[in-house]
């Protein structure tokens, strides 16, 4: 038991270390992305008010959060429409957070086992009684659990910030902002985003393993290797196909192999609109993010083949971390 406890304690410290090192990307990038939406919304409000004062009448300037719709529906007490506008606000924060998260996590994983070899601080980490397995796994967990949870938290804070801004603006127009706060539905949307985190994490494993592997293995330029290898393989595969020799179907290769190795860390990239019998209209389409869709993804062979491939790639990354000799 003692050894198990030690491993758990150490793992906690390892994850904490990853957060310390990368909090700029994990927390502050998300913070500023959400803050940008709020700032743009406020600028939109100011521009709208100024134009209205100068031109008169109804001026429709809504940047960031969709103010016009919210104002109309709060005034007309059309609760269904109001809820949809609020849901859209929550999704806007969620969409921006997801984009930031993709870039942050992608480059975090590429550097996770490379940067400390480059600046030789790996020699300090390796002077401590920690297993390489724990080290590599802590980086995977930081990327696909810690960073998304922080992002999801920031989404909620951003949404509440937007509620405050919009409420103040409604008060300015003598409209009661209370209906904005009594709708539970947007928080249901947020809960769906939160429950998505583990589904995203499982789906992301092939990319996590692929990026960690190059990060641990190469002497320089992990980005180039990680990108170029699947592209060259795809071109070769296409060329072999031209010769009429058996090959992998190109659309399958790009979608289910290269795509999974490079882009599975995009949150919600497992959403399969065709399976739901609907046309996916972008990330703003709330209907695509639902619990049955998550269940469907978790039941798909693509999910679990990806998990197995990802686990194998992570195991390879652990081996390289253990034995890569920086001579």
């Amino acid at each position: 038991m003692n050894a198990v406890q030690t491993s758990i304690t150490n793992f906690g410290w390892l994850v904490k270390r990853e957060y310390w090192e990368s909090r700029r990307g994990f927390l502050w990038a998300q913070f500023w992305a959400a803050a940008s939406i709020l700032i743009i919304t406020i600028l939109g409000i100011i521009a709208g008010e100024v134009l209205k004062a100068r031109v008169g009448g109804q001026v429709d300037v809504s940047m960031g959060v969709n103010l016009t719709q919210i104002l109309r529906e709060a005034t007309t007490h059309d609760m269904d429409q109001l809820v949809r506008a609020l849901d859209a606000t929550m999704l806007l924060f969620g969409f921006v957070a997801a984009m930031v998260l993709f870039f942050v996590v992608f480059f975090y994983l590429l550097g996770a086992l490379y940067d400390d070899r480059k600046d030789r601080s790996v020699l300090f980490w390796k002077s401590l009684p920690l297993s390489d397995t724990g080290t590599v796994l802590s980086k995977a967990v930081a990327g696909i659990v810690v960073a998304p949870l922080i992002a999801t938290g920031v989404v909620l804070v951003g949404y509440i910030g937007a509620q405050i801004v919009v409420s103040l603006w409604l008060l300015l127009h003598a409209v009661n902002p209370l209906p904005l706060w009594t709708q539970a539905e947007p928080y249901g949307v947020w809960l769906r985003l939160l429950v998505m985190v583990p589904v995203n994490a499982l789906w992301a494993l092939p990319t996590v393993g692929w990026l960690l592997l190059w990060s641990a293995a190469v002497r320089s330029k992990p980005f180039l290797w990680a990108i170029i290898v699947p592209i060259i393989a795809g071109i070769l595969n296409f060329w072999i196909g031209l010769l009429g020799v058996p090959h992998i179907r190109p659309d399958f290769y790009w979608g289910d192999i290269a795509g999974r190795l490079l882009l599975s860390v995009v949150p919600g990239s497992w959403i399969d609109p065709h399976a739901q019998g609907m046309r996916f209209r972008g990330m703003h389409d709330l209907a695509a993010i639902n619990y049955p869709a998550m269940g469907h993804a978790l039941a798909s062979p693509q999910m679990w083949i990806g998990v197995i491939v990802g686990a194998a790639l992570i195991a390879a990354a652990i081996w390289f971390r253990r034995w890569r000799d920086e001579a």
Partner: protein
Amino acid sequence: MTASPMSASSESMHDAHDVQGAVIRATDLTKRYAKTLALDHASFEVQSGRIVGLIGPNGAGKTTALKAMLGLTDFEGELSVLGLDPRRQRPALMQQVCFIADVATLPRWITVKEVIDFVGGVHPRFDRGKCERFLARTKLQPDQRVRQMSKGMIVQLHLAIVMAIDARLLVLDEPTLGLDILYRKQFYQSLLEDYFDENKTILVTTHQVEEIEHILTDLMFIRDGKVVLATDMDALGERFAEVMVNADRVEAARALKPLDERQVFGKSILLFDGVPRAQLAELGEVRRPSVADLFVATMKGTYA
């Protein structure tokens, strides 16, 4: 000259008290890189409670030997460190072994407080209070980041952490490279005064031989991947001797096959290995050679 560092009799003697005896035991340690042989059947032992200088020219295999002991690289041959196999039992080994590889390997983004929290969290033998007492003697601040520190300060921080860990073996690979003399002196002084005792063993490589000569208890010369000399400092004084010879006796002295000869103020200084004292005393003034002079004589022709 190929001094055998390990005779059959001493080996069996060490077996008897291996637990406190040999901290490191290497037999036929060999490491091949693509084109070079970094270690070539090196065999040696390091006893507990010693301060051993591992000294060799660039590319002789020092760092490779240290990496093998720390489980950072694979190798052929046999190697046991504190009775453990560094290849397979690394995490257990690192509870008892500390190392400072080069200056400035602390991550640049970390703060003093974070690194102490982290090491305190994961290292069962780390004494936080001790570390803070060492740091109190420096100008380091808890919120200071490594990237804001000079090389000397980084080493102060690293040394404070390492000295607060109750380990049995401390490995230092060029720990003072690029530091000014104040930091260098302070580094070794701290180690001697606040860290080293009979239960600890220190293995150090450095090019600044003169600075550590007086603190070493043992010496190992490594050349072309082989340990060519392994001796304790007392035996060194008995085995090697330097004689200052007047011009008229030089021919007689040369007949005794000196390892090396150099000229100082019109006199010749000859270095001998294993020639009886009495015989040498007839030729001139006999003294103990410095490690640096012995090193130069031993490594003659390395870069030729």
